[in-house]
């Protein structure tokens, strides 16, 4: 469903003399099969968002080949948009000044979803994500949790084959987080939607992902199951410590062993 082959993406930053090239993603290759639920981890600035943007056609790769749902994202961006759903946790894809209901109605037209199909799907999502209380509220007045649920609904109304989530639980409280995870689990299990999820919340990974990929300095440093991940650092107790161990290459002091001042 997602194929990434030897992909690089670099940016030139700075001006004139201070100009230098930053390699956000280097020689990245992976495949994600239909129906998989994959967690994509990495420290800040590791290249997660850059990867997501290349998968969705927002950014063109500098070199290499990307294929999502059978399409080249850069060349067939609008065609791909109908087959994938994207959630940017940090910003909304909804129309800021429009009531949630109008945003959804617009999406129905933009994605050319059949009216009856749309109605039953929206009804289902409204129940699952408990949207009924704020369907007529403009998006700018929604709380973060409500907005996120709205965004996830918007990404699923056209029943995409692939769902790409960039930090969908960022800033959510414990209850909302649990509800969101349960919802994503169901979508993956019942509809067979392929899900790629980036997050800093390892609870998301533990609860949802059968497979984990780890990116650091633009390179894939781990790809395997959650158990494989734990096995990389058998001394560590929690998954947090395992990941911290991987991010720092084992140089981070463990809890309780912090160097005294």
């Amino acid at each position, binding site marked *: 469903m997602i194929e990434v082959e030897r992909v690089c993406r670099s940016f030139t930053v700075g001006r004139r003399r201070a100009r230098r090239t930053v390699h956000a993603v280097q020689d990245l290759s992976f495949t994600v099969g239909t129906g998989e639920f994959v967690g994509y981890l990495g420290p800040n600035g590791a290249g997660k968002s850059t990867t997501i943007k290349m998968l969705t056609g927002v950014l063109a790769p500098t070199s290499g080949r990307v294929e999502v749902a059978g399409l080249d994202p850069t060349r067939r961006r*609008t065609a791909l*948009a109908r087959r994938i759903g*994207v959630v940017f946790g940090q910003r909304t894809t909804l129309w800021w000044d429009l009531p949630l209901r*109008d945003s959804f109605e617009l999406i129905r037209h933009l994605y050319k979803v059949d009216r009856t199909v749309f109605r039953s799907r929206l009804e289902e999502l409204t129940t699952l994500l408990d949207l009924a209380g704020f369907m007529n509220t403009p998006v700018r007045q929604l709380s973060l949790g409500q907005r996120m649920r709205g965004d996830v609904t918007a990404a699923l109304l056209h029943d995409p084959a692939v769902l790409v989530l960039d930090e969908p639980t960022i800033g959510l409280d414990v209850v909302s987080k649990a509800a969101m995870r349960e919802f994503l689990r169901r979508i993956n299990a019942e509809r067979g939607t392929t899900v790629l999820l980036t997050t800093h919340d390892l609870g998301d990974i533990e609860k949802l992902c059968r497979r984990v990929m780890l990116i650091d300095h633009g390179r894939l440093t781990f790809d395997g199951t959650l158990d494989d991940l734990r096995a990389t650092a058998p001394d560590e107790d929690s998954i947090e410590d395992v990941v911290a161990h991987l991010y720092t290459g084992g140089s981070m002091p463990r809890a309780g062993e912090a160097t005294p001042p």
Partner: protein
Amino acid sequence: MIRTYILLAWTWVRASAQYPGSLAMLAIGSFAVNALDVVAIWVIFEHTRSLAGFNRAEVMFLYGTSGLSFALSDMLFGNVDRLSQHIKTGTFDTMLIRPAGAFVQMAVDRFGVHRLGRTIQATVVLAIAMPGLGLSWSRAWMVPLMVLCGIVIFTSIFALGGALQFLLVNAPEVANAFTYGGSTLTQYPLSVYGGELVKGVTFIVPLAFVNWQPALFVLDRPDPFGLPYWLRFAAPLAALALAGAAVLAWRAGIRRYRSTGS
């Protein structure tokens, strides 16, 4: 594409209709500010009978055609010049993940009927000017065509300016020199300007085809700069060439797009 535009525009109109007072004020404001231009023309002709060889009705005709082209182009597509804001805030990313052209989504963003104010003003000026020209149909047929070409030319400049913002995110005003500047330039007969400038806006940035060259045909005037007669009919050609350049530049811009950090 047109369907998407109308759909989004209608949604924005409904959203803004929640504040009818503000809508009316904006429309009246835009009408009034531009009406001052006409007052300026009126004042000039209180002191003279001709401006660089053109009488009051003719100058108003030039003003009206350029104004109408610019107002319609600005109303429908002028928003493209806000691209750098969308890039900076990251909202441009959200446009790229929807199954619609980024240009259309940019152009229609926050569409409001208040933008009609200037269009109405330009139409009124043109309606006042036209009867004073005593045109026959053998020349008047050019008028709708020149307005249309003007719309295409201004829209192409807006798009080129937008495309430039992919490179110069911090200099969105560069293009304004050509859009708003071009609109002001073409409000008067180009014969008030120097020959070098006129050649520049004929052969480089084809602003002369917004109204000046076709108007020479409509008004049946010799070209004060002695440029070839066939240029009067070249407006569609110039418009298409510029539109082609704009499409290529916009596409190149999208390919070069770098997004923001997160």
